[in-house]
């Protein structure tokens, strides 16, 4: 419903409480539900003020602050009765209006805005009202502008008759390092040292062991995991990797008799009965 429609349906039922109001605006005498909807149409104090100025055919360059303030307060009071979510913004404006009103009652500085904005406390209010009104009109123009999805649709993309060959993003060691550095930076900020520097080779050996186990599709003798070319360090690394994997529950180590073959078995391939052979 537009404001006009709401107002057209009006009948004097509602009453406005608050300060004694000599000039209660007619449009506040409408059925409560219509009044609530009407009051909800205002976007804020500037919107309400502009409405009052237009309705009363006031000259924005020479605003009769006393009259405007009175009407404004009547509306704010009505909004308050409906518990509209307005609070701060409207009350702030009310305070500002009252201040302008009191200042304009002082004998000096009774000039209209054209004569000199200096000294007229209404100048800033006028400037804000006009700026907001411009934006409001621009907003309406934007909303009326034909737009994609409502007034027209983009044509395509139509299907490709052939599967496109998508180029792959480039592999970049720099990018990888940058990512890892970022992670470490974050960790450093969040929880110090929880991820300690650890030799890559152990982690890599862990992957290698798991990969070989997967290809073996079953258990492997520990010795077969040790390759001749590895050297002592390599053996040590592989052994540490195995221990680490056990700790992480990624595999089982099994030795069925003292000094017997040490079997390495991927965790998922460990049938419970068999793997527990050495236990009761």
């Amino acid at each position, binding site marked *: 419903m537009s404001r006009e429609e709401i107002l057209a349906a009006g009948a004097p039922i509602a009453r406005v409480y608050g300060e004694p109001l000599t000039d209660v605006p007619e449009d506040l005498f409408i059925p409560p539900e219509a009044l609530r909807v009407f009051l909800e149409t205002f976007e804020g104090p*500037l919107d309400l003020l502009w409405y009052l100025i237009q309705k009363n055919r006031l*000259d924005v360059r020479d605003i009769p602050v006393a009259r405007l303030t009175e009407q404004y307060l009547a509306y704010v009071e009505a909004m308050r009765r409906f518990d509209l979510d307005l609070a701060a913004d409207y009350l702030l*404006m009310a305070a500002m209006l009252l201040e302008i009103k009191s200042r304009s009652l002082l004998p000096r500085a009774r000039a209209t805005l054209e004569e000199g904005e200096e000294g007229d406390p209404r100048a800033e209010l006028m400037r804000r009202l006009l700026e*907001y009104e*411009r934006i409001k009109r621009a907003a309406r123009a934007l909303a009326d502008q034909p737009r994609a999805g*409502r007034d*027209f649709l983009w*044509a395509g993309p*139509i299907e490709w008759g052939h599967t496109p060959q998508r180029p792959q993003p480039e592999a970049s060691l720099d990018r990888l390092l940058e990512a890892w550095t970022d992670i470490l930076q974050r960790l450093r900020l969040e929880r110090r040292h929880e991820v300690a520097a650890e030799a890559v080779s152990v982690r890599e050996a862990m992957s290698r062991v798991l990969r070989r186990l997967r290809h073996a599709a079953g258990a492997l003798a520990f010795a077969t995991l040790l390759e001749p070319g590895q050297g002592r360090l390599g053996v040590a690394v592989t052994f540490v990797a195995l221990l680490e994997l056990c700790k992480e529950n990624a595999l089982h180590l099994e030795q069925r008799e003292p000094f017997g073959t040490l079997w390495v078995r991927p965790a998922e391939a460990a049938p419970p009965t068999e793997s527990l052979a050495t236990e009761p």
Partner: protein
Amino acid sequence: MTSGQFSTKRIVEAALLASDEPLPLEALRRLFEPDPGADILASVLAELQQEWRGKAVELVCTASGWRFRTRAEIQPWLDRLRAQRAPAYSRAVWETLAVIAYRQPVTRGDIEAIRGVTLSTQVLRTLEARGWIEVVGHRNGPGRPALYATTQRFLDDLGLRHVTELPPLAELEAMLEPGPEAKLKDEDEDQGT
């Protein structure tokens, strides 16, 4: 000029229809080897526009480039196919967008100052999610507030090539006349969908 079986014109047409985004002239030039040059392509595009004149689809040039789109006149037919209609935005959304479009780059505080009312985060999120606004930087000062500006997508969706093509702001003089009661429409017409 032809490229094998199909003319340059037919290939440009197909590329525009097959692309999921508008194509600037430079992108169209790179379709061909050797590069036919900007002039040839410009005239090919003009010919295409001419060819499509009588159709319900037209070739337009927006901020991001060339693209085909359906004409507004047939939207009522197309709407019958759609399960859901385009979203309606509240006055708060449009006014916020207007402040950003005409006064960019602006902070949230600037928007609140102009509208005279607190801005809900939801409004900015709606506009960001639609791809119409984005943070383009931060203003120095307390809290380093984000600076918002409109995007190319915003211009594309409104069929504009540049921010200067936005509807002009109303002249101050026109607003100073104490007129009859202002006509205040609260929403654009697709309210309630």
